[in-house]
């Protein structure tokens, strides 16, 4: 089987999510990559060095600059003429593009796979990860998105794939990019951080959220996450949200502070290696999944912890 993997990038570098998707694709067959964007030579070069990659298709055109699904999907559909599976990481970009591709190919997408059980069989989470379904498709072409925390990252170095330019399928004139507010942070990205400190509604304000959590994160070299309640209340921006409908993370250590442990939140972090919970309510559901729990007031504990580290 020949697979086509969507390369997630920021215009300069390949994002880690791609490496997990390559691992998943390699379980199906030969992994070919698609780098789409504008002025992306360095991304294509980097993609070609990923271990185990057969070929890198590069589509360099203004129409692809912001990965608008309306323009990218027809490109993927064209390349799927000689590939058997389209594999994208389940990032917001992957989730935006892949179903459009699937519908255009008249196939059912398999979302968010956790494992490849065979050429047509996969496992995937349903009900916020409260159940794991094994699904088998009868479609002859596959469209798959990959839960990146479930697959090891392919080595970023060691490969020397051939780079091939592909012609643009053009701007479909349905949509235009009108701007973005991308958070700039020195901290590790949530989806690749080794340690995450995450805050909930209990912080009470944006000032307290940041004045307490940021120094702790700095001490631990950690990424900062939040519950939906904390994001809704405006303590943290939307890209901090961990959960069923936010980011799915699986760091070495996840420290949940003032988070009750609703199933929608657990869905995003329960595959973390070690979970540490700090909560003043000893019956909070988060303690049922925590490896290490500390019952107490976060306003006392967090400053003390930061100081003692």
């Amino acid at each position, binding site marked *: 089987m020949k697979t086509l993997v969507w390369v997630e990038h920021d215009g300069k570098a390949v994002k880690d999510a791609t490496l997990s998707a390559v691992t998943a694709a390699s379980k199906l067959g030969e992994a070919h990559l698609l780098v789409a964007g504008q002025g992306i030579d360095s991304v294509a070069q980097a993609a070609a060095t990923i271990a185990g990659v057969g070929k890198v298709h590069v589509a360099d055109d203004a129409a692809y600059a912001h990965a608008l699904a309306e323009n990218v999907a027809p490109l993927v559909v064209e390349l799927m003429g000689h590939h058997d599976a389209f594999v994208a990481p389940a990032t917001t970009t992957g989730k935006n593009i892949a*179903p459009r591709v699937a519908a255009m190919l008249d196939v*059912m*997408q398999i979302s968010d796979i956790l494992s490849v059980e065979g050429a047509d069989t996969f496992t995937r989470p349903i*009900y916020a990860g409260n159940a794991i379904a*094994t*699904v088998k498709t009868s479609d002859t072409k596959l469209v798959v998105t990959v839960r990146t925390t479930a697959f090891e990252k392919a080595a970023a170095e060691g490969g020397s794939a051939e780079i091939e330019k592909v012609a643009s399928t053009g701007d479909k004139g*349905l949509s235009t990019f009108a701007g973005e507010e991308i958070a700039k942070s020195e901290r590790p990205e949530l989806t690749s951080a080794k340690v995450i400190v995450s805050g909930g509604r209990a912080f009470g304000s944006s000032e307290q959220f940041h004045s307490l959590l940021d120094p702790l994160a700095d001490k631990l070299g950690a990424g900062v996450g939040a519950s939906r309640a904390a994001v809704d209340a405006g303590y943290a921006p939307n890209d901090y949200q961990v959960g069923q409908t936010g980011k799915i993370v699986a760091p070495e250590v996840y420290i949940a502070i003032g988070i009750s442990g609703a199933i929608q939140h657990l869905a995003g972090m329960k595959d973390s290696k070690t979970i*540490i919970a700090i909560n003043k309510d000893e019956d909070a559901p988060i303690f*049922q999944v925590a490896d290490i729990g500390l019952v107490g007031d976060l306003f006392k*504990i967090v400053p003390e912890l930061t100081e003692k580290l």
Partner: protein
Amino acid sequence: MKVLVPVKRVLDYNVKPRVKADGSGVDLANVKMSMNPFDEIAVEEAIRLKEKGAVTEIVAVSIGEAKCQETLRTALAMGADRAILVQTDERVEPLGVAKILAKIVEEESPELVILGKQAIDDDNNQTGQMLAGLLNWGQGTFASKVEIADGHAKVTREVDGGLETDDLKLPAIITTDLRLNEPRYASLPNIMKAKSKPMATKSPADYGVDVTPRITVTNVAEPPKRTAGVKVADVDELVAKLKAMGVAK
């Protein structure tokens, strides 16, 4: 301008799903079912656009068993004008749902279809994008803000790195994220009024759509369980644990 809002009946988000012992699925017998929370947000957004004068009619659609009527009545009580139930006891996948919706779009000619970004049962996050692909329309997924003006929709989207705004030519598809709005509760008088609002009942065959599933679910299992670990007494003990793990120096 007319808006179509597809709404799905799902296990209520407060109910903890129980996996059936025989591995055939999640037990839905005698449990509370509700409108998918993202779809409540979609209905609310349509109503707000109507209140602002940008929309004239809201049509709610649900595909599924007869009980989806309840979900549609909820949409009508919130403020939708009429409803279409596409009744089937078969399992309909997102591709089938999108194909039926595409036919309804052909008949109804809405300028906007607002869907939830994902249904909280199957968590597929596909239907809106598929519908956009089938119709060759623009798609504004994971929306946290929508502005309609001059035949365009300006949609702010929640993406991994923060927020992105796209400008879509109408007609277009929008899928809702959690922070787009806070849905209203239907008032008692409106619940009563909803009972007399029109609801058409159709079948997938009426639209000539083959909804035979492409995917078979061969097993549904519980995920590996985490068990509660230890409680530490104070910060010093926690620091010691973090050091032992190599997380702190």
